[in-house]
């Protein structure tokens, strides 16, 4: 029996921020990219235990699970339940995939737990720091708590989720995370 593989996180040790904003890599999470037509939403919501939002730019949460509307037939489902670092997380993602599969409705559920990584941006200047590279209007009026969108941050594509008035979760592909963190760090210093 071979040794068990050990997990190495893409942003291990990254830190940054300023008096008015805190930047930190998020804990590993299980994620699936979920694709399905409108007719499958109800069944999939039940199976996954979270109501898949159908309004643009909204998300829905239940317990440790959040479903983000990314497009009319696309959701990013993130499960932040405690992850043992020696657990691949893929098992749980498989759980999500299997749960979805159990509905029998046409859909696509694909494990992207390791494709994405996330950075938490929090503090009074969080929106300003993000606007150092993101063209969205991040005022509370335009981008409420729970709002989410796939958009750009500098030269990369990201998914942005507002988890609180001063809290954001920025998801990006892992090879872009160094750039994302670097731009956030620079932007935080520039305020």
């Amino acid at each position, binding site marked *: 029996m071979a040794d068990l593989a050990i997990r190495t996180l893409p942003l291990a040790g990254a830190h940054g921020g300023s008096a008015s904003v805190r930047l930190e890599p998020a804990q590993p999470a299980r994620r699936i990219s979920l694709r399905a037509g409108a007719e499958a939403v109800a069944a999939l919501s039940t199976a996954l235990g979270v109501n898949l939002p159908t309004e*643009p*730019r909204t998300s829905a949460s239940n317990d440790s699970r959040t479903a983000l509307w990314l*497009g*009319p037939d696309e959701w990013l489902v993130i499960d932040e339940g405690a992850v043992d670092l020696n657990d691949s997380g893929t098992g749980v993602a498989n759980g999500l995939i299997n749960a979805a599969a159990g509905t029998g409705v046409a859909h696509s559920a694909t494990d992207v737990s390791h494709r994405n990584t996330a950075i938490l941006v929090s503090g009074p200047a969080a929106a300003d720091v993000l606007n150092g590279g993101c*063209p969205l209007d991040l005022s509370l009026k335009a981008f409420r708590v729970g709002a989410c969108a*796939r958009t*750009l941050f500098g030269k990369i*594509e990201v998914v942005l989720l507002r988890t609180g008035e001063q809290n954001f979760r920025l998801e990006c592909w892992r090879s872009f995370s160094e750039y994302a963190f670097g731009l956030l760090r620079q932007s935080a210093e520039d305020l």
Partner: protein
Amino acid sequence: MLLIHCPYCRDDRSELEFRWAGEAHIARPEQISEISDEAFSEYFFMRDNTKGIAWERWRHIHGCGRFFNAIRDTVSDKFLLTYKAGLPRQPVPGTETAGVETVEGGAA
């Protein structure tokens, strides 16, 4: 930098998030392998390249990812209407034949 109304996100978003995708309402022929050279040439190579009101496709590639259609004045760069992919060619808003009730979109 244009501001573009995505009919799927129902939101005005920066041009940065979009990619232009050519002239709209050019349907791929059903029996494409059977069509004549002339018909193929017309379908694949020839474009109107309109100066003025143009029907074109855009993709909200760094947003919801969807392709959609737009009526844009290529001289003023004004978007007159954006509407979902799959809808028939829409009339120019404000003209006599315009029937906005058929459009799931909105003026940008």
